[in-house]
């Protein structure tokens, strides 16, 4: 059994968000510097940005009020049972 506090996963998520923001910024810079803004590029950028913002909003909405100090168990039966496969 392995116990991990929930906030560890939150920090991992924030680390991913940092990578996401970095690469999104690089993408946008490419678009503005070289691609030129056309109707197609605007529509695609708008759709992707809308989905990303909506995802972030829903994540916040579903996770508000979470007690991040609580501990969850990963692989709860790992190593505690001699008969894990029911044989």
């Amino acid at each position, binding site marked *: 059994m392995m116990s991990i506090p929930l906030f560890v996963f939150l920090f991992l998520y924030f680390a991913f968000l940092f990578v996401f923001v970095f690469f999104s910024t690089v*993408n946008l810079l490419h*678009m503005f510097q070289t691609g*030129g803004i056309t109707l197609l590029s605007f529509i695609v950028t708008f759709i992707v940005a809308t989905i990303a913002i909506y*995802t972030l909003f829903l994540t916040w909405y579903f996770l508000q009020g979470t007690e991040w100090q*609580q501990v969850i168990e990963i692989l709860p039966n790992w190593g505690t049972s001699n008969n894990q496969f029911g044989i």
Partner: protein
Amino acid sequence: MDFIRLIHKKSFERILHITRRHYITFVPIAFLFILLILVPVIVYWFINQLYPGFLINDPYYQLVVLFVSLYYLSLCLFFYSYFIDFYLDILIVTNDRLVDIEQRGLFARTISEVELFQIQDITSEVEGFFPSLFGYGDLIIQTASAIPKVIVHDIPNPHALRQELLDLAAADKKFHRDN
């Protein structure tokens, strides 16, 4: 447009064509994106049918939410990166030269340039069901320059562009011969 700055346009140069890959070649990725967006919704619907009240008050609820959020954000990032790669492949034809800008991933870009009078031969290829239906294909340009061959993929109306490039190359050759 800003990419004109990339090619350092000369004072006498006129831009005749700016061509990107045919939009239809992006459609499969767009469909895949929509399909992958729907996957968690469909999976959740099925699980909810089999186990009503699934994940309610479950200690793993927060983990699932974080994972699904991560999945959607990754999807957005990959899709947009692919779009940038697709959209920034540009062929620019001027009255003096041909510039092929190829974006390879996020951190690599190749710009090939061929003077029109150095063009020796051009082949246009339209192969396959969808290319024939939507009229797109490849343009293979043989040159006498340091870049012996330039291949431009999936451009619209390659046959018409080939003919126009041949005419432009002939006019440029005549200009260089006379001056």
